[in-house]
């Protein structure tokens, strides 16, 4: 086959990417508009999260993906998931932004559920994609989102027809191996009226010596009465600068659950927002983060209440160890007119070392009277009394700390409604504690 030529970020590069992916004209135009916005805008300024280390010069945004003919050729990290999944699983794998491998249950196809890698969806499900793509997260919201819309080349489009309940979670695995090449996945989930679906996304990479830039956008579009659960297990490599924006605009009686687990990257800024537009809509978030080494993890969730009789609840727990810095931003925003809102949030961070730092910024903005709302956030350390107690039973210090941290996370892990995700997060926590 041909030599893999990388595409560098530029107006010309973006146009070439569109051509290589065989896109319709409207998509090409959107990319170019996004690129212009990227050029025009300055880097976002976030308090407590400094982008000085981010390098966008001569950014390689695309390389032709590798051909993967069998599961043997998949990265070791993915091979286990692939071999473990039995019949009836729904597993879709992308390595280096290529649609590498999949396993689809019979039920999925029979029910008319669409799961397509994003570039294919743009070509083959044009009408649907065109309608919803970019409608929830505007392309020019900030420079890094604009970068995403200019360079998007992977991810998935999922459509669930009216009243269909997809029993088995749809599992999406994205893995990047090529050093220095950016990853720009778009996850677009359209759940039609009364549909129910659970999507679990796992992202990981081997970064080597080079920095990797990831700019991801997740758009969830639940129609009236639809229910979507979105779990994300983020374990990008040590060289990754990850920027992920997740958003849902909920119609009447819709429900969205976010289950984010942030473990990887050199610097990760992820933010999920649910806009509770429709009357009676509900959104929940159960999240975990774990920063070690010199990681910087910035995790945010916003519940914006607009319609009446809406509910939200956010529960987040995280740990910062070594020299890591973690920032939690939770906002319950109740607009005028959002009567009979119930909006709560709780967050706890535990520091495991002298040099770790944590900021917990819970926010409550209320512009309506008939509401119930509350928020609480804590930052604490290992309780010395508990540590002494466990050690007095013979547990070495490191094991006692491991047990206390497991105990710290246990109540929140119990609340995760997806068995597979719960087990995976437990394993990631244990792995961090052992090292």
């Amino acid at each position: 086959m041909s030599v893999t030529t990388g595409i560098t970020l530029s107006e010309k590069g973006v146009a070439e990417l569109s051509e290589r992916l065989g896109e319709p004209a409207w998509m090409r135009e959107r990319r170019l508009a996004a690129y212009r916005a990227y050029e025009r805008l300055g880097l976002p300024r976030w308090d407590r999260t400094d982008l000085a280390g981010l390098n966008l010069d001569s950014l390689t945004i695309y390389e032709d993906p590798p051909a993967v003919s069998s599961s043997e050729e998949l990265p070791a990290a993915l091979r286990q998931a692939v071999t473990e999944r039995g019949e009836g699983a729904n597993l879709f794998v992308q390595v280096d932004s290529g649609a590498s491998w999949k396993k689809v249950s019979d039920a999925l196809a029979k029910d008319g559920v669409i799961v397509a890698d994003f570039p294919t969806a743009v070509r083959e499900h044009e009408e649907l994609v065109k309608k919803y793509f970019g409608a929830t997260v505007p392309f020019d919201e900030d420079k890094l989102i604009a970068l995403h819309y200019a360079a998007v080349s992977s991810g998935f489009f999922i459509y669930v027809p009216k009243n269909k309940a997809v029993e088995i979670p749809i599992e999406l695995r994205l893995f990047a191996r090529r050093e220095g090449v950016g990853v720009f996945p778009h996850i677009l989930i359209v759940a039609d009226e009364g549909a129910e679906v659970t999507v679990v996304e796992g992202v990981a990479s081997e970064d080597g010596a080079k920095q990797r830039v990831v700019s991801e956008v997740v758009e969830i579009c639940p129609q009236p009465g639809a229910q979507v659960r979105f779990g994300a297990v983020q374990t990008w490599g040590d060289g990754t600068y990850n920027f992920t924006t997740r958003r849902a605009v909920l119609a009447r009686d819709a429900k969205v659950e976010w289950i984010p687990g942030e473990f990887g990257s050199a610097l990760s800024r992820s933010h999920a927002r649910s806009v509770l537009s429709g009357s009676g809509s509900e959104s929940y978030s159960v999240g975990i983060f774990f920063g070690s080494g010199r990681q910087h993890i910035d995790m945010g969730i916003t519940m914006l209440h607009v319609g009446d009789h809406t509910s939200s609840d956010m529960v987040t727990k995280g740990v910062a160890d070594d020299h890591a810095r973690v920032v939690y931003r939770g906002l319950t925003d109740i607009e005028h007119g959002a009567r009979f809102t119930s909006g709560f949030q709780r967050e706890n961070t535990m520091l495991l070392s002298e040099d770790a730092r944590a900021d917990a910024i819970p926010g409550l903005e209320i512009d309506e009277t008939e509401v119930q709302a509350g928020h609480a956030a804590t930052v604490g350390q290992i309780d010395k009394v508990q540590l002494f107690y466990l050690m007095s039973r013979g547990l070495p210090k490191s094991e006692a700390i491991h047990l206390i941290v497991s105990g710290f996370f246990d109540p929140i892990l119990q609340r995760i409604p997806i068995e597979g995700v719960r087990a995976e997060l437990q394993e990631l926590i244990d792995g961090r504690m052992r090292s």
Partner: protein
Amino acid sequence: MSQETYLKVEDLHVEIEGKEILKGVSLEVRGGEVHALMGPNGSGKSTLSYALAGHPRYEVTSGRVYLNGQDLLEMEVDERARAGLFLAFQYPAEISGVSMANFLRAAINARREKGNEISLAEFGRKLREQMKRLEMSEDFASRYLNEGFSGGEKKRSEILQMALLEPKIAILDETDSGLDIDALRIVSDGVNALRSPQLGVLCITHYQRILRYLKPDYVHVLLDGRIVRSGGPELAEELEEKGYDWIREEIGTA
């Protein structure tokens, strides 16, 4: 390896925040023996148990402690426990999120070599057996460690740990405080069931009540940081009758 247990405390001086609480305590406890250590509040009873366990806030300024010939004071908190020391706390810590069962299994395995961990089946069997003895319902195993336990339940949880960890020296720090008669009986029965030539018990108490169930072989009186009198079980009864002031007078005149 049934070496007879032997704890030797030699002229122990302990300070907390620069203030000397124990002013030269000496004590010997052998396997098969139950020693009661009695004293009024402030005499230093809990200081002794915390110092033996290795609590960082208690500073040993002089003296020695040997457990089966090993220098206990040279060991870390967890090493002392693995060497066979067990402290049943007066106020056991609560640890949310950690189930009793997981904790107990981890504590048992801490004493075993890697690869020789207790099997789930054996652990389950032992746990159920001991919980039954202590009249603890089985759902305690899945409850978070001591969380929301009543006083009596916490004390029984301490004795449950003792039963499963099979220590050589057990220090019961005011285990009787806050217990009603029934709980006291259950806890005492629990300790009595563990009596063996390998186990030495040091029962620290303010009141004589528990000693009716847990009959001591020796009774020592701790007053102002020193053991001022030692005797047999009848000493406890004398104290009950005459109070600690009687001992003070006796010491004063001697």
